[in-house]
């Protein structure tokens, strides 16, 4: 066991999978000698050499499109996009090419790649370094999407993602890259894709979230003094509706928290799923606490934008009082 931050856990998972499987190669901007702008690939260039840890030209479509070719050619590429705000140029390759390779060729070619992308706000970064676009890719058939909220999950989910036969977007919440440490087994292990984690159990209300917001939710729960069940989705697509439904059938109330803008966010899908699965159990409308339907502001106001314990607390109160 080692006491690791989330970014260190990712680094460890990469090392272990690269040692095990030489089809695994990394490509992206500044991931080589520099170890990535967040140091997630620190030391890998030195350890595995420039054939397996490749600094690419500054071109996100190129990174993803080339990775598709690598994957079709039998490798297991792990491309990195430096910040989620720069997925834009790769959108076409990701959604119209990568996500469709398997179905387009009726299984003749597959595209097992893991696209690593730091995601989310709260780190005082410049524009386009703080967004949360997961719903857009959730609406895109053919992609799996994962977002860990802890070092332990980060390692286990990343190993699962690398071994997965399908393309996976691995979102890394940058706000908690180094926010805390956790015991992480040295050995390899996997955390299954598609299974949520119940962070804490409770009877009065279900709270659903993922990524960095888990912490804000825990703070709000503690402050509320109520018995609240917190579910961390861990996988965004396919998300664990079963776990959510089971919990809401028990509690009858639900609050969903995410950083992304409200309208057409994943919160809407989960809320609708709850209506479908738990209609007769619901005692109050499902409540969403999200980013507003605005552009994520520059950092002076980012904490006004991001859901915090206070706003989540209000939702608890309102939902309980309904």
């Amino acid at each position, binding site marked *: 066991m080692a006491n690791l931050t989330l970014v260190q856990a990712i680094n460890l998972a990469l090392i272990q999978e690269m040692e095990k499987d030489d089809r695994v190669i990394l490509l992206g901007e500044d991931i080589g000698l520099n170890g990535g702008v967040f140091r997630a690939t620190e030391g890998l260039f030195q350890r595995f050499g420039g054939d397996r840890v490749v600094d690419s030209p500054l071109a996100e479509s190129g990174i993803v*499109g080339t990775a598709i070719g690598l994957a*079709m*050619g*039998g490798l297991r590429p792990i491309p990195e996009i430096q910040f989620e705000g720069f997925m834009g140029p790769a959108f*076409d390759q990701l959604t*119209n*090419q990568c996500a469709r390779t*398997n179905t387009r060729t009726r299984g*003749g070619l597959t595209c097992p790649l893991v696209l690593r992308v730091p995601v989310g706000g709260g780190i005082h970064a410049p524009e386009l370094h703080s967004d949360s676009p997961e719903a857009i890719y959730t609406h895109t058939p053919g992609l799996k999407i994962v977002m860990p909220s802890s070092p332990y999950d980060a390692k286990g989910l990343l190993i699962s993602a690398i071994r997965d036969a399908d393309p996976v977007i691995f979102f890394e919440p940058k706000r908690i890259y180094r926010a805390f440490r956790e015991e992480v087994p040295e050995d390899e292990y996997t955390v299954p894709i598609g299974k949520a984690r119940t962070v804490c159990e409770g009877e009065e209300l279900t709270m659903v979230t993922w990524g960095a917001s888990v912490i804000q939710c825990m703070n709000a729960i503690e402050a509320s003094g109520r018995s609240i069940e917190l579910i961390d989705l861990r996988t965004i697509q396919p998300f664990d509706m079963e776990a959510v439904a089971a919990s809401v059938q028990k509690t009858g109330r639900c609050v969903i928290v995410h950083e992304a803008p409200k309208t057409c966010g994943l919160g809407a899908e989960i809320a609708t799923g709850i209506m479908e699965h738990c209609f007769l159990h619901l005692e109050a409308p499902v409540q969403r606490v999200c980013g507003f339907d605005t552009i994520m502001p520059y950092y002076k106001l980012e904490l006004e934008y991001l859901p915090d314990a206070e706003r989540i607390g209000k939702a608890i109160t309102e939902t309980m009082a309904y």
Partner: protein
Amino acid sequence: MPVKPIFEAVINHVSILDEHGNFDAELGEGLIPNEDVVAMYKHILSCRHFDEIAFKLQRSGRMGTYPENRGQEAASLGAAYALEPNDWMVTCYRENAGLFWRGLPKEKILLHWMGDERGNNLDGLRMTPLAIAIGSQMLHATGLAWASKYKGDDSIACTFFGDGATSEGDFHEAANFAASLSLPVVFVCQNNGWAISTPSSVESAAPTFAQRGLAYGMECIQVDGNDLFAMVKVTRDAAKRAREQQKPTFIEAVTYRLGDHTTADDARRYRDQEELDMWMKRDPIIRLRQWLESRDLWSTEQEEQARADAEKEIAMVVKNAEEIDAPAASEFFDNMFVELTPELKKQRQTMRTSSIGQDPSQVDVKQSEGAIK
């Protein structure tokens, strides 16, 4: 010196068998064994017939939109001929001649345009499916070439695209990745003068498309794309450069589409008859036949026989494509993931028995008979 030259470049044009039948013996003699020229000529006849039939299938409502390849056959065929069997061919949609030469069952192309993804399963063929999104495929070629280089399997990737496609950012990124990362890719631009109704002069203000490659420090060459010999020559050189030096090449193959853009297009709206007439004379079939006849490698009887063979062959191809079982209604679920997610399984299972989104366990529906059939 305040102003000094620091870089110089020349783009060459290669032609071996030109539209007037002139043949450059120095470059051309022995380049292709005679029997292969004969075989390729027959192949082009068969492709031309395929085109004609495909066009008719569309017109008679038996197939969707189809892009005729007519007039461009020599370009993709010459390039394909110059490749090794293990090389990847990453095409757009006007390279039937090259794909068929390398073993793609012809009915696959019909199935594709008949709206059937099963036409895209090219398992084991070292090909990617026709690329509908213009410009998207070159990056895949770059990645495939990289995988080959990484694995040391000695294969390269050859990718095809139109003049219009060079305007897309993805072309630029693919070419730059290939040159910068030193990848064994051959880029073949089929400059057929038009991108639908847009003349190639709108796609680029430069005098050649070949010079697109100068930006990346790539070898660049322009070639008469209707000249089978020249295509074989430049592609062979480029393939060798890729295989031995891991260096990409940009080839501009100057050609022309003699048909409309697709069956949904009417080229008379935007291009002149004179231009078309001029290019009709440059048809690769005309000059190849002349060349073969001048060497006594071909006769009128052989021509008749070849055309009859092509008719028979293509009739069978159409039959195969049309007689394939209808896909299962739910077939489009099957390859969404290597293993379907539970949600997709449920959607597949209930696709016609329930509207989606409803958890069956919540509903106790007595179908009110008659209300809906």
